[in-house]
């Protein structure tokens, strides 16, 4: 804690200085637990909204809410999962209300979106002849987005974000068994999509090759 500075006693205290010790502790803990997940949340928001500026709003809102209700975060549980759930709820409240066809895929939009914020990250696995490795980022992204939302969501949370089935079940408010079967079915669909791309390149996708 800061020691009182005798030369400053006549000045007006800034907001920061007048924070209580508890508030200060809360801030520190929040930074340690919550802020470290900012990149993951931003990516999740991008996937949901497919629009960088909406994604920023969504993340901003999520952190505001999370900070306000940080006391209700159960210490020792996965803070990332907690934040994801808040973001998802915000998303539903804000964006889904006016969307009539949430399951509809706009491939042009995906393509535009992907090109508009494409990373410079180079692909190191191009040399492999395996058909999986021939797939482009954009194609995998498109295949994922062609899935019905309930499947896409669990695959994303499991494979990209690394949440456990229990955490996912809590996030999507369904039993673990449902998460398990959605992943099973979703992956089947996804594989079929990816194999479709692979065939386009003339790869033999049979097991027996």
């Amino acid at each position: 804690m800061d020691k009182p500075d005798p030369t400053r006693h006549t000045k007006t205290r800034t907001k920061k200085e007048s924070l209580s010790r508890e508030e200060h502790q809360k801030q520190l803990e929040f930074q340690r637990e919550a802020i470290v997940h900012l990149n993951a949340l931003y990516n999740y928001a991008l996937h949901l909204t497919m629009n960088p500026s909406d994604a920023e709003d969504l993340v901003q809102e999520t952190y505001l809410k999370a900070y306000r209700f940080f006391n209700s975060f159960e210490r020792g549980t996965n803070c990332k999962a907690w934040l994801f759930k808040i973001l998802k709820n915000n998303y539903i409240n804000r964006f889904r209300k006016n969307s009539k066809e949430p399951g509809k895929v706009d491939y042009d939009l995906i393509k535009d979106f992907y090109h508009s914020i494409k990373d410079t990250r180079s692909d190191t696995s191009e040399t492999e002849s395996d058909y999986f490795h021939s797939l482009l980022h954009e194609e995998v992204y498109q295949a994922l987005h062609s899935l019905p939302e309930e499947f896409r969501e669990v695959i994303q949370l499991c494979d990209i974000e690394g949440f456990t089935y229990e955490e996912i079940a809590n996030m999507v408010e369904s039993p673990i068994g449902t998460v398990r079967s959605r992943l099973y079915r979703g992956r089947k669909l996804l594989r079929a999509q990816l194999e479709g791309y692979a065939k386009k390149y003339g790869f033999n996708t049979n097991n027996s090759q």
Partner: protein
Amino acid sequence: MNCKKAGVLISASVDGELSLNEEQEFLLHLSECEECRLEFEDAKKTKMIIKEKIIQFKAPQALIMSIMQLTSLGTKEHEDTLLYE
């Protein structure tokens, strides 16, 4: 365990989410069934593909800054972690 039953378990097994019993039975079946073994390998690959091919973007710096300001402390350390991770 037959192939049909094993097929349903492949997905959860890739995630390490089978119960101990299921896992044992599943592995036993894999040791006897080439087809399911290949299927299992493919499932692992598919998971990896999703992980590797979906680009993870960095949050814009302006967003990081404004969220740091929400909690007003703005410690240098955390900003560095996020920006240069």
